[in-house]
């Protein structure tokens, strides 16, 4: 649970300035071009602490349903497309009727 803080070598009570200073110190130690894996782990830990969402062990196994990630935008596009089709079929209907 505290692994993100451990990764940066700080205590969970560290303030944002301390977090950043620790992050910068770790970057000096593990530059992206020589230690890509360490760099990624440091970055992940830093981002997690910064967003306040330190990763919980149970999150790791949670399976997220795809429906949860639908944006309104594709839905709108979809709706427009369906509407366009509906209008066309209405035209056809009128043509077929008269």
């Amino acid at each position, binding site marked *: 649970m505290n692994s993100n803080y451990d990764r940066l070598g700080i205590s969970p009570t560290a303030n944002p300035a301390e977090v950043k200073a620790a992050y*910068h110190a770790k*970057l000096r130690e593990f*530059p992206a071009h020589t230690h890509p894996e360490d760099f990624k782990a440091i970055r992940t830990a830093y981002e997690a602490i910064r967003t306040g969402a330190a990763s919980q062990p149970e999150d790791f196994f949670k399976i997220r349903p795809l429906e949860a990630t639908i944006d309104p935008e594709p839905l709108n596009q979809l709706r427009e497309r369906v509407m366009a089709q509906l209008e066309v079929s209405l035209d056809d209907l009128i043509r077929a009727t008269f």
Partner: protein
Amino acid sequence: MSRTVGIDLGTTNSEVAIVENGQARVLPGPDGDLMLPSCVGFSDSGKLLVGREALRQYAAAPDRTVKSIKRWMGTDHKTTLPIGTDETRDYLPHEISAIILRALKQRAEVALGEAVTQAVITVPAYFTDAQRQATKLAGEIAGLEVLQIINEPTAAALAYDVRSEETERVLVYDLGGGTFDVSVVEITGDVTEVLASHGNNRLGGDDFDRLLQLHLADRFRQTHSVDVPTDAVTQARLLRAAEQVKVDLSSHAFATVREAFLSSKGKTALHLETEIARTDFEALIRPLLDETLEAIDRALSDAKLDAEDLDRIILVGGSTRIPLVQQMIEEHLEQAPTDGVQPDLCVALGAAIQAGVRVGENVDAILVDVSPYSLGVAAVITTPMGMMPGFFSVIIPRNSVVPVSRSQVYSTAADRQTSVEIEVFQGENTIAEENVPLGAFMVEGLPPQPAGSLQVEVHFDFDINGILTVTATEKGKGQQGSLVVNNAAVHRLSSHELNQAREDLQALFESDETISIQSREITDAETIDPDLADLLDRAQQTLETLDEEQSEELQTLIGQLQTAISNDYDLAISKLQEELEEFLYYVSTNTDS
């Protein structure tokens, strides 16, 4: 010992720089010029010309000259150039770039008196995968080991020396000859961290020239009721005139164009003689600049910052000399850009700093950069209206710090589905097909099961050089498929082909070495007026007697003057001539005393 340099391979000009004793400096050519025009051509006798000489013949021989090749990087666009009296050769964009890089390598080797074998090369932040790979390949053909490809605005930020322990938030606005980038950067001491980048890899000074060229053609038509001939030479002359107008309008409210004998009507020769107001030019380019302001807003919002959070605005690239650019940015962000940044040189200086970091020179710089594009796969989504295929499911969101690894788990969409196709895209559109396809592969042999019960984990690994490796794994039985997205559009060279390309290029340079030096002397004597030549001679001699700081200053002045001469920028010449005279007078009086 061989050396490692930083290279800014620009659309219009390129530079090579190095870090020595912790200080970055741009290396001058044999003539003192710091910038090498990114122009390649062959003389009428089939000799290779690179830089100023190639640019000089552009208006007279556009069919034997190529410029702005950077716009075509990563495509299979072919440039046909005559290499002998009746022989031609098709060049791919990265092959032309390799010639420019080879010339820069040579320039550095002459300046340093040592072999140069490794380089960090910059590209626009918004360059795609294919464009980056083409740049890397060009470096390899030029005989350079490319240690890293870094982003131009990031390099500019590296070169920008704040180095206070207080965090500064800087917006880098980079408008060059062919590309536009904006990056929001946070600098704390020696750590330079990019928060967000956005841009347009087909927007720059070349577009402004093109708009002015069309405008000049309109003026000509209005005056003479005849169209400007469409042949390459006339159009090249018109384009050159347009470039000149653009440059003049950066320092004057009006610019005069005189191009004699552009066309004829019966026996009468028709000339283009007109005056362009700065406001005319501004009206032409304003819509394009509006786009750059939108890009600023998006970069800021991606960085989760507001305009007032910015401590500084840095302008990079030759096109930022246009007064309207500065004015629009200042109005939009309610803050004036910072003075004292060298817009033409800071990218090369930053590349040299990163090169220094890579080879363990005594430079403290830590770089954290992002990928400006989102990366993901095409997926089926379930909607209230049923299953919809072809949506873009993002795995690595734009502006993620690189290197980065991310995974996403997907479920099968159909009952008894035994294979899945993983199609990889780069872009921001929610419809997968609207983005740039990077490749696709199949994972087969899945156990037949009901829809949704089988899970496939797609893992993206994006490395520091922008190479993406995609792995898909079926979670139960462990069926796997993978793809390395590398050189999407540029075909990969085998080591044999690479050696061949290197040797060809080497031969091209060797056969022309002596001749190009001779021709340079001849043309210089012909085109430079004796006063200027004398002044340049005196400047070169003075160079040896100065300390490092002053000699660098003088070197820059000489370089600028030579660029002005080679481009026939009369106004700039007289201004720089004066400046150089003054400088020489100043140092001579100070040494005597």
